[in-house]
């Protein structure tokens, strides 16, 4: 039966009947474009901003969202010291074991542990959140069209009132940028939801941009290294190409 269903589904997809969802996905309003220090070949993550983003993540997002692929030690990449990372990790309780008695036990986290998940498993996460499990955010910026702009838009895209005629099912919330507009996550970021230690004014948009920057970093912690190496590689290849072109001209000039 399952087999038959997938055959029909595939046939429908192949023949193009299954693409009705596309229109829905594209119908989203154009994303507001923010400026991101990490954008472009020469852009780099703003570590202060990423640290603020971590604060937003820790205090708000982490209550529901996991970061299951990311170890605490990754925080060193946004400017936390080794001691600070140890402290952050130790604040979490990690289930370890079994010990010599065959029992699982709790211990403080270590920098090598992955971020502790807020729910025991996906079913528990779904049960606690109206049936839809909040997605793991480890690679979220790479997994969404529009990347950081989409994250920032989504987090701030809750109008006070849904537009007239919008159908929002029970337990869902209207979001301007979410495909289909009915999202399981309520508005979470408000002005002054967090208090920044560096004195930055915590508007909802500022918080959204900061957390999107943090998520951009965890989605690809090697991005700054990649761009740095890339500039050197391309520079080398340009010089190498020039030399080879000279050699080629020289060699072929001897032909008659």
């Amino acid at each position: 039966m399952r087999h038959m269903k997938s055959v029909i589904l595939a046939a429908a997809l192949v023949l193009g009947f299954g693409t009705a969802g596309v229109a829905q996905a594209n119908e989203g309003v154009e994303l507001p474009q923010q400026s991101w220090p990490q954008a472009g070949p020469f852009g780099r993550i703003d570590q202060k901003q990423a640290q603020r983003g971590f604060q937003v993540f820790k205090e708000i997002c982490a209550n529901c969202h996991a970061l299951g692929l990311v170890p605490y030690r990754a925080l060193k990449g946004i400017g936390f010291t080794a001691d600070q990372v140890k402290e952050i990790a130790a604040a979490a309780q990690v289930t370890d074991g079994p010990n010599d008695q065959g029992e699982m036990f709790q211990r403080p986290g270590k920098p090598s542990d992955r971020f502790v998940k807020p729910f025991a498993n996906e079913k528990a996460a779904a049960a606690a959140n109206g049936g839809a499990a909040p997605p793991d955010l480890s690679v979220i910026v790479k997994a969404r069209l529009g990347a950081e702009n989409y994250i920032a838009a989504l987090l701030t895209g809750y109008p006070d009132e849904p537009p007239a005629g919008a159908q929002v099912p029970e337990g869902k919330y209207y979001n301007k940028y979410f495909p289909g507009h009915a999202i399981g996550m309520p508005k979470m970021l408000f002005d002054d939801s967090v208090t920044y230690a560096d004195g930055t004014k915590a508007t909802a948009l500022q918080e959204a941009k900061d957390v999107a920057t943090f998520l951009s970093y965890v989605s690809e912690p090697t991005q700054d290294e990649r761009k740095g190496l890339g500039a050197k590689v391309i520079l080398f290849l340009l010089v190498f190409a020039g030399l080879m072109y000279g050699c080629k001209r020289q060699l072929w000039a001897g032909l008659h």
Partner: protein
Amino acid sequence: MALYPSKFNNPVVKWIDSRLPLFTLMHHEYVEFQMPRNINYLWAFGAIAMLMLMTMIITGIMLAMQYTANTGLAFASVERIMRDVNFGWLLRYIHANGSAFFFIAVYIHLFRGLYYGSYQAPREIVWILGVVIYLLMMANGFLGYVLPWGQMSFWAATVITNLFSALPVVGDPIVTWLWGGFSVDNPTLNRFFALHYLLPFILLGVVMLHIAALHIAGSNNPLGIEIKGPQDSVPFHPYVTIKDIFAFIVFLILFCAFVFFEPNYMAHPDNYIPANPLVTPAHIVPEWYFLPLYAILRAIPDKLGGMLAMFSAVLILFVLPWLDTSKVKSCVFKPLTRVAFWLLAIDVLVLGFCGANPPDGAWVVAARVGTLYYFGYFLVLMPLLGKIERPLPRPASIADSILKGGGSVHAHGAAAQPMEKA
């Protein structure tokens, strides 16, 4: 002593060469081998494709050392490569973008052959082996796309393997056999990984045959006139080697721009979502280099028909040498065929856009017209134009066209221009 009479002076080289004449072989095929002196930079793409294949094999072997082919672990193992393996991100981005650039090189190589008639006698087998390589590349590109086990991986595997269920009677058993079960699952991922590791080496073997056959007839050239004497050719080394190296570095600069600055530009964001058999992505698209074929598949309003059309679109290339009835190779001298060729090139691009867009409204019409022209070009225009078209006068030899300025040749612009003023 029945030893090979090696001409090398170095005693060690001579000792080996007289027992296994590899040095003589390499010297013969890659140093003194005669190449037409008028080949342009389009002739570098064979060598570029070869270097891309080596790049893929080397990075692929290193990735395989870190990758885990298990539905529960594959996605996380790829992310572990990205985060924790030394330069793992570089290996993976080279490998992921490398497949696209391998296809770019091969598509340019293929269209170059099509334009200059490189498939005509005596190079039919070179061409046929090339089509075999293309088929193996497509199979392997698809298998590799499945391995990260993201949403696109899973659903592409489901859609493509399900195509075979359109075959009457044997369809469903074949699909079950491909899956190793009753849905795309762990056995599927395991065998796809095994095959993805195997096929490149078969591919490499076919590439060797492709080159061996090429070195019997020698390379074609923009004029499509065979080498008639030493004045027409240059030795492979250093003249062609230096040109190929320069071309490869320029290609590499473009490739690196993607690898280092836009590594996910050609990828689909959905493939960073772990595979979920219960959630279908809104829009399942293959990698961009399959889009024209995908458009042909969807242009036919029947599953079996679409599948047959898609496979025919590639298989038709096997008989290309016999569909072309023209006695003249190069489109430089065939003004009508040249127009038809460029229309075909545009047609394939249009089909690509059709494949990328949902198949409704104008896109369906465009895909159908595009499919019609694609097959029309090979089945109608090629045989017909070869008979009725009057080719332009051709120079007596390659050297003639270069040294005397080539008259009619130069009138046809850059395509016929020898690359160097001589």
